[in-house]
């Protein structure tokens, strides 16, 4: 088969049509991205809203993914230890760990960072102050502006620069249940209030639905090919909340979001992401008309990839599936190669699959494993050749 343009390859994979080779998508957090970029001599390594896709395209990505929404700023910026940084939702974020606490600890921290090998520890920013703690807070809460040009303007630029060749994804990041528990309300409160204050939870979710419907609609208008809605409802071994509660709280609100996007462009592709095990709601995703589901974390409840592919693979396209919890950061080169082979063998046959690690590549991945990953993906990801023959 002749070589397809990246955007054709990605689109055809979503439609379960014949393609030359597996489309790929690698995403990296800032520390990993600058580390890998140095090897390629690339110095444009912006992430989040400052995203520069130079490195991702070099690695072979078929899509450009630009992140907006509640996660887009805090997780891609530097926060000092002790500082609380507030985003446009009024959520306060801090940083944990050793980096920058004392001079002695800075030396300890430096020992955990290694260029060629894995960074043993990666500093992370965490939500620590939640703006809605009561019904009064909700009543007085000012939702951010979904028409904010600062957030939206780069979409137009990316579409103009890359849209002809590449598939353009606008990632709304945590959009509903996760935005509620992790950011706006706080995890323990969110789950307890599902019992104690169901109206408060409904109000928060309605506000988020409204915001993300409008924000996503703007992205569709600006020419995005796909809207990615992220909503982590899976824990390692099971869902965090019951499938029944998800069907009551999330499903109708997601439907409203998707309907809004489709009212602007009926052909818009929709991706729904959850970390962890969300297998009980895969049939619901299909019912909602989701085009792409993932990134399929294979270490807990979503282990049985072959079965998932056989059961749902013809009704929904899948992305991800390569273990980033254990194999990619701590496996040997051969383990990585084997895992890529297995993931592709499980999910690739018959199409409807986009190869990707099951989440961001973090700085805990040694450079040689990234090499092994890319090499194996190129060796095993061509249709008509083993194992996709």
């Amino acid at each position, binding site marked *: 088969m002749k070589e397809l343009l990246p955007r054709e390859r990605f689109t055809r994979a979503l439609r379960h049509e014949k393609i030359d080779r597996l489309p790929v998508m690698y995403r990296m957090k800032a520390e990993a991205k600058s580390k890998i970029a140095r090897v390629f001599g690339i110095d444009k390594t912006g992430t989040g809203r400052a995203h520069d896709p130079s490195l991702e395209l070099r690695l072979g990505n078929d899509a450009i993914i630009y992140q907006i929404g509640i996660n887009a700023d805090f997780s891609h910026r530097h926060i000092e230890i002790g500082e609380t940084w507030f985003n446009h939702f009024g959520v306060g974020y*801090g940083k*944990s*760990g*050793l980096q920058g606490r004392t001079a002695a600890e800075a030396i300890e921290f430096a020992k*955990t960072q290694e260029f060629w090998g894995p*960074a*043993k*520890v*990666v*500093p*992370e920013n*965490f939500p*620590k102050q939640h703006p809605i703690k009561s019904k009064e807070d909700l009543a007085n809460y000012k939702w951010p502006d979904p028409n904010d040009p600062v957030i939206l303007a780069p979409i137009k630029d990316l579409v103009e620069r890359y849209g002809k060749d590449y598939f353009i994804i606008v990632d709304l990041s945590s959009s509903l249940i996760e935005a509620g528990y992790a950011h706006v309300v706080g*995890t*323990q409160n969110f*789950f*307890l209030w*599902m*019992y104690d204050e169901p109206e408060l939870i409904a109000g928060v979710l309605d506000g988020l639905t409204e915001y993300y419907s409008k924000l996503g609609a703007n992205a569709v208008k600006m020419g995005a090919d796909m809207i990615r809605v992220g909503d982590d409802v899976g*824990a*390692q*071994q*099971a*869902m*965090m*909340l*019951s499938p029944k*509660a998800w069907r009551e709280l999330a499903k109708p609100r997601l439907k409203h979001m998707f309907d809004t996007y489709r009212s602007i462009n009926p052909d818009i592709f929709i991706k729904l992401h959850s970390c*962890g095990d969300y297998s009980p709601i895969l049939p619901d995703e299909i019912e909602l008309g989701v085009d792409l589901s993932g990134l399929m974390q294979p*270490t*807990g409840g979503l282990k049985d990839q072959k079965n998932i592919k056989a059961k749902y693979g013809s009704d929904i396209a899948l992305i991800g599936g390569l273990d*980033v*919890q*254990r194999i990619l*950061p*701590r496996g040997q080169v051969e383990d990585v190669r084997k895992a890529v082979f297995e993931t592709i063998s499980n999910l690739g046959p018959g199409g409807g699959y986009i190869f990707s690690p099951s989440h961001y590549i*973090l*700085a*805990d991945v040694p450079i040689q494993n990234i090499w092994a990953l890319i090499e194996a993906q190129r060796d095993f990801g061509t249709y008509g050749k083993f194992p996709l023959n």
Partner: protein
Amino acid sequence: MSEPELKLPVGWESRAPAGWSWSSLWDAVENGNHKFTATRTQEAIDAGVDPKVILDDGLFPGFDLQGMRFSAQMIFIPEMLVAARAMKAGLALIRPLLAAKAEKPVGVFVIGTVLGDMHDIGQSIVTIMLENAGFRVINLGTDVHPSRFIEAATKERADLIGFSALLSTTVYYQKVTVEEFRKAGLRGKVKILIGGAPTSQEWATECGADGWGKDAIEAVRLARELVAQPREAWA
């Protein structure tokens, strides 16, 4: 898995006052009704029921049932959290009475999320389950420096220590913290458990920990097992 059933404590009738029934308390804990749990626990105390009996016959059965359902993925975090909150409300009334009767805890357990990691939902569920199982639990919270684990373990003469981590980029500190206990000469005095999403039995072995809790139920089972094993005494 088939639906777990409420296990009635053998011989509860003979331990309760005449005409007494626990069933409303079993239901209250199971359904996460913390207000009624506190009310009914207080009624039992006022009726002169032995606090240990209230705990074993009144509070545990409903909670154990939810624990089994949680483990079997029949209920999820919200249901488990409200049951745990109800259990806590009952325990708050019972604990001072148990202490006054010099009932010894099963063991002293110091738990926390390792340095660099702010996730606490898993370890707070484990904490409540351990408390229910009779452990005295000292929860150090999140982003806990190894030196704080050592300080608390020494001060509390801990039997068991638990390190939680949710990220592949923070599990490293589980290993470091085990190593710090060794360097401080305390490794023989405590049993160490680890847990959290990216962890595994292999990782626990690599860290030099004594056990890996796949989930909260498994963590409690392991804690019970390990606390019975011989250790060096605290000076």
